[in-house]
């Protein structure tokens, strides 16, 4: 896996905190693909992923002053994870509303996800994982985070996080026809 570590990140963050316009452009260039990939793999929807990405950077700009050091990736992906949960809550409310309406309109089928790139085989198999496992795997991959950081973000024992990632990735390999044995 490509290392996302950037020696200039610390300096870049300092420039952002100083309010340098160009620094924020560089920050977007550095993290947009990873964050978009994270959102896309979770939502399977390009429009939603772009919207979440936009919201994420707006939040980053607003909260940059409150970043007190440590792992920037952990901070960034904690915000990204919170945004995804907000999106899920909104979708749940929307789903409830649509279900009520659907009952009124005699069981109109509810489109679960739209705009899915079905040509992406991996996306299809990722959809078979439960959302909690998928989220922690994607945070590990796109956020380049250690299990300690993941367990801290998720507020669960490190063994639980390890087990989820291990079982999830193993299942993914099986689904894609890789036995590994």
């Amino acid at each position: 896996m490509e290392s996302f570590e950037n020696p200039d990140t610390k300096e870049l963050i300092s420039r952002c905190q100083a309010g340098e316009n160009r620094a924020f452009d560089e920050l977007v260039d550095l993290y947009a693909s990873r964050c978009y990939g994270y959102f896309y793999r979770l939502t399977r929807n390009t429009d939603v992923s772009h919207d979440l990405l936009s919201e994420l950077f707006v939040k980053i700009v607003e909260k940059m002053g409150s970043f007190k050091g440590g792992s920037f990736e952990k901070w960034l992906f904690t915000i990204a994870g919170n945004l995804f949960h907000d999106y899920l809550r909104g979708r749940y409310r929307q789903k409830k509303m649509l279900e009520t309406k659907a009952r009124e309109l005699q069981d109109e089928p509810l489109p679960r996800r739209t705009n899915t790139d079905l040509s992406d085989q991996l996306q299809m198999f990722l959809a078979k994982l439960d959302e909690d496992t998928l989220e922690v795997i994607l945070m590990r991959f796109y956020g380049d985070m250690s299990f300690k950081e993941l367990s801290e973000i998720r507020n669960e024992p490190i063994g639980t996080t390890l087990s989820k990632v291990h079982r999830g990735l193993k299942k993914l390999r099986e689904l894609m026809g890789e036995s590994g044995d």
Partner: protein
Amino acid sequence: MTENPEKMKELLGSFLDPESALKAVEDMDRGLDLLQSHPAPAPDPERIAAIKRDIQSRIGCIRRRQPISVWIGWSACAAAVLLVVAHYSPFFRPSRIPLKQGVEIVNLTPWTIDTEPLLSGIPSNSEDIHNDSLKTNSDFDSPNPIETLEQELKMLASTDDFWKG
């Protein structure tokens, strides 16, 4: 930052036996390789440009907001300093003398009126009232009360229609 393979083995070794830990590390590495070999689509460059524009406008807003917040902060400090100065300054300190003077004024004011002429007239007035009273009631002190009663009865008899309405 993710753990290196050695750290991973050590970490998993605290939950699994060494052989299982090694296999779990391989499972995870190969699983993550799948994600690596199937990259997610890249974000739309136009959307990225829009995000950058949005960020620039927001930075501008934050900068515009900053002087106001600084001004509010300085105003609050100035107000606090003024309050402290006012509290300790003799110009603003409330004096205790007026309260004492007030008490004296309240006590003295009624006695500054010259009441002597009024008071001196009271005994003579009361004497007059007393005399009038004695004069009015003098009939009750008549030497012949029966005669008085008869006279009254005669008066009533001469005007006996008073009860007829």
